[in-house]
């Protein structure tokens, strides 16, 4: 087999195998009671991306140098069935992740196109604002690369100017932290977690944390602004709940208990901003791992050789 093709297969197989191991580890930790109550959105993002980012890191910074250093370049070697199966599995994970990401972007683009065809430009804060005259009580930041705030006239009519300003500030806070781009990463993460309920739970947890943090960033410690946003949240929730809206258009996984938690949070005195603890730890591990793996390259290469030969 062509050495370049063999190297590609080895990298793919490593990506797939490490991805499964890390996903299994994450699932075990979750089952063992890891709930990360009060975790920041960055922590949850790091946890959710751990299998795919970790396996990519190990494939490129550990397996690749080990293989390039110790593999005899002139040797043509045949790949065994396990290597081929793992490489095929990794390719399927990558392709499905890309498909999910592409689909999510295409759906957002389509929604934005529908809204913008009808929209009137408005004065927003931070991101482009477009007002649409639709029955649905829509207030959303749409799009990953160039997100726009789209709000329906029904929401503006329901809120007073101060409340509406806070609503826009909330969406602008999402925009400032590029939450939609982070959401795209979560949606497109190429791992087996994406096919399980744990993936959906982590994404829902991230969404809830991102909403709470956007509330905090939008209003700061100003009690009047916090009160205005709390009031706006209730008003928009009532609009979504109203019977004359044809279907629950904004229905997603975060339910009214989330609104309840957010309103109570806004009414309480502002808490100190929580700092991400898990993500820096994971990032440090990711940076140190390639260095610590250098002395093990020979052993790792031997393991990769076993993988290539297995079942041949």
């Amino acid at each position, binding site marked *: 087999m062509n050495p370049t093709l063999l190297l590609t297969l080895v990298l793919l197989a490593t990506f797939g195998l490490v991805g499964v191991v890390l996903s299994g580890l994450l699932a075990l930790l979750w089952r063992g009671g890891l709930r990360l109550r009060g975790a920041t959105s960055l922590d949850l993002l790091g946890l959710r991306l751990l299998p795919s980012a970790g396996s990519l890191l190990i494939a490129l910074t550990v397996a690749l140098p080990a293989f390039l250093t110790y593999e005899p370049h002139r040797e043509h070697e045949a790949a065994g069935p396990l290597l081929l199966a793992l490489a095929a599995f990794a390719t399927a994970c990558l392709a499905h992740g890309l498909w999910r990401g592409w689909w999510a972007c295409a759906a957002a683009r389509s929604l934005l196109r529908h809204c913008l065809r*009808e929209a009137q430009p408005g004065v927003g804060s931070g991101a482009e604002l477009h007002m649409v005259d639709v029955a649905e009580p829509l207030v959303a930041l749409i799009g990953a690369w160039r997100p726009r705030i789209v709000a329906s006239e029904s929401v503006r009519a329901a809120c007073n100017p101060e409340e509406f300003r806070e609503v826009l500030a909330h969406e602008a806070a999402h925009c400032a932290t590029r939450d939609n781009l982070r959401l795209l990463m979560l*949606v497109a993460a190429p791992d087996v977690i994406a096919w399980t309920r744990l993936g959906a739970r982590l994404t829902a947890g991230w969404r809830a944390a991102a909403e709470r943090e956007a509330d905090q960033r939008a209003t700061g410690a100003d009690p009047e602004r916090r009160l205005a946003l709390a009031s706006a949240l*209730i008003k928009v929730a009532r609009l*979504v709940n109203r019977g004359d809206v044809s279907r629950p258009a904004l*229905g997603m996984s975060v339910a009214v208990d989330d609104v309840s938690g957010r309103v109570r949070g806004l009414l309480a005195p502002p808490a100190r901003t929580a700092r991400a603890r898990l993500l820096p730890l994971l990032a440090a591990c990711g940076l140190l791992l390639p260095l610590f793996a250098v002395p093990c390259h020979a052993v790792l290469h031997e393991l990769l050789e076993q993988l290539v030969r297995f079942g041949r």
Partner: protein
Amino acid sequence: MSSQWRANAPQALRKRSGLGPLETRLLELLWARACATTVRDLQGACPGLAYNTIMTTLDRLYRKQLLLRRRDGRAFAYEPRCTRDELLSELVSGQVSEMLGASQRSSVILSTLVRAVCETDAALLDQLDALVQAERRKRRDGRK
């Protein structure tokens, strides 16, 4: 409704609603008249069209719930169910609603202010509203 939309209303309506050119034309005529109109009346405004063609098209629009009709002697008199702007708004709402519905089934890249709220949550919203009002009163009283 944007001004561009108003200028191209028949085209926009056709594009949005999936109505045929004849359906759009008759609908525009009915909107222009602003009162119940029979097939015979419309035939005068569309000289090239057969009576049966207009009747069938109006019946189709009635079945699509775009027209209301009542008996006028032996014939039916038709009138639009809503104004052009209302219809366009309904169409846009429907499309946006469909797109957002699709976002439930998969993850569209959007962050919405508030998501699912079911009927039974109305009481909880009342409670939260009471909390907000109480906090407002407290602040007002504190300032006095």
